């Protein structure tokens, strides 16, 4: 089965939630919808499920137009960010619910429910009610109900966002294996770039209701086609600086000059924007080509063995992710190193014109 969105638009009360989205998802693929809140992730999932009907465009399954087909006639399963279960049914009945409606014979139903429960490690909770379980168990119940149905399309709307850190890590580890076993088209919406990178598969980055790029997750991460994609797919956010290319060198506003090595080599003269990730902004000179610029420390966040140095260079706010503890005083000047080999270059319209080597882009 393939699922195709063709130029799909959804507006609610004059507000555009999804604008002209075109996507083709193949059978057995794992797809991540990545974007900040209000970028249209949930709406796209609802359009795929058939819970909402687009105002323009078509939804096709295997080339057949299903735009107006109601959800209960489609083969869909969905997991919400909030833990949604039937509070009046036991965990067993919750998982069995789609099979009961489909009139699956008793013995097969029992076997499938117990398999799904075992996979989600809910074996010992089957007789309990969802509201008496922990958040992680509740969400695993919802996941079990979604997989027991063996639907062609499995939609997950930030399923781990409301879980605590430990459970999130645990489920994040299980999910990719699970998705591979099911063989359905899986669509996983998330706001966290790290989720997308850990899940792998393909990623569609979203910005204000549009898909900015769709491709293999690693490709999208290392070769963002435009600035919006690079911004959506960087955590902490990507740093930017305006530059002027002239005579094979990049002139930065502060007077610093980057040698046009690596991606910057061969760029035509003109105005560009350079982008670089937080882990490519250094406190110590990483290579001979790297050039220092002076910035003012705004704040330093220390997370155990790493430091996030927030600095202001001219009126741009940068974040440097560096190993080790660096206790810098806010307001103090700091030398930061830019490495030309790690630079993404965007033209005036925000399109990518040069990217680092594939290996150097991570």
């Amino acid at each position, binding site marked *: 089965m393939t699922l195709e969105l063709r130029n799909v638009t959804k507006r609610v009360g004059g507000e555009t939630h999804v604008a002209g989205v075109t996507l083709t998802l193949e059978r057995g693929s794992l797809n991540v919808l990545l974007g900040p809140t209000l970028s249209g992730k949930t709406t796209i999932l609802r359009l795929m499920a058939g819970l909402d009907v687009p105002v323009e465009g078509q939804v096709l399954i295997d080339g057949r137009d299903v735009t107006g087909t109601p959800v209960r006639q489609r083969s869909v399963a*969905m997991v919400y960010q909030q833990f949604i279960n*039937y509070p009046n049914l036991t965990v067993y009945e919750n998982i069995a619910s*789609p099979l009961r409606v489909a009139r699956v014979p008793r013995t097969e139903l029992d076997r499938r429910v117990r398999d799904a429960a075992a996979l989600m490690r809910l074996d010992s909770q089957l007789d309990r009610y969802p509201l008496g379980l922990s958040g992680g168990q509740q969400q695993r119940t919802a996941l079990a*109900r979604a997989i027991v*149905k063996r639907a062609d399309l499995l939609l997950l709307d930030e399923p781990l966002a409301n879980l605590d850190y430990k459970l999130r890590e645990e489920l994040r580890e299980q999910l990719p294996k699970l998705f591979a076993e099911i063989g359905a088209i899986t669509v996983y919406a998330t706001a966290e770039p790290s989720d997308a990178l850990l899940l792998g598969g393909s990623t569609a980055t979203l910005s204000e209701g549009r898909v900015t790029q769709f491709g293999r997750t690693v490709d999208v991460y290392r070769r963002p086609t435009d600035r919006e994609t690079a911004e959506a797919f960087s955590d902490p956010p990507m740093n930017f600086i305006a530059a002027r290319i002239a005579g094979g060198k990049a002139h930065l506003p502060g007077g610093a000059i980057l040698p046009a090595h690596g991606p910057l080599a061969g760029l035509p003269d003109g105005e560009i924007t350079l982008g670089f990730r937080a882990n490519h902004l250094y406190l110590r000179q990483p290579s001979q080509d790297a050039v220092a610029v002076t910035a003012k420390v705004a704040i330093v966040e220390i997370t155990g063995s790493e430091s996030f140095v927030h600095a202001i260079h001219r009126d741009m706010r940068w974040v440097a992710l560096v190993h080790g503890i660096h206790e810098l005083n806010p307001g103090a000047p700091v030398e930061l190193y830019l490495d030309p080999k790690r630079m993404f270059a965007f033209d005036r319209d925000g399109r990518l014109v040069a990217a680092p080597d594939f290996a150097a882009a991570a």
Partner: protein
Amino acid sequence: MTDTATVASRPMHSTGAARRAGARRRIGFSWLVPALYILFLMVPIYWLLNMSFKTTNEILGTFSLWPNEFTFANYHKIVTDPVWYNGYLNSIAYATLNTILSVSVALPAAYAFSRYRFLGDKHLFFWLLTNRMAPPAIFALPFFQLYSSVGLFDTHIAVALAHCLFNIPLAVWILEGFMSGVPKEIDETAYIDGYSFRRFFFKIFIPLIAGGIGVAAFFCFMFSWVELLLAKTLTSVAARPIASVMTRTISISGYELGVLAAAGALTIVPGAIVIYFVRNYIAKGFALGRV
């Protein structure tokens, strides 16, 4: 070390004791107000019970805190005289009928208000409530003539329908609050699982708002039970409510005060019974709903 420890602990101990004493003093006052309140509430009810066990002569002749000549004659009269016990049966009949009607009509209406946006939904919702603000008296005359013309005068269904005027809006409001407490995603999950609307509504949704249905039914029953004006206007003999029987007794047989008191005491009973059945829901209900 030990010295300083005991020295340090002593003032703490004494302040703790003082605090406990203060708490005791506060408790000493705090029971008084609710006790007085309950006392004032209970006095009339006690007096009603008191009178219902007296003879009419004793009620009129002496002022006594408890019955001197204890008698069940008043109650006996009510359970044996068809005019009296039919009054109760009529009231129970139309109040029950009204409760079933109101709740079953209000369920889909409340679901629509809770789940869908449509043109003028907020205005319509508020307009429903304004029906409750109108005094029933203004509807008495039109209802009388309308029900008479379609041959419904003096029937249980007439009173039950008339009471829908104020009970359906109330039930819609109560149920809408409960329904909005159930996330819309539960509906959607059911549709995704393949439930039809009917199956979802009866198998999943109704059990989730059972408390709300209990509370709504309780209010409908009680308001229908205590309403006098419409019930009296729309009936004459066959469907006459108990409250109406009580007013007649004064005017015709003169002073039958003992029987009247017994009737009053019995009128409280159905309310108490209904409260007993929904007691678990009502506490949960008030917390979840928005009433």
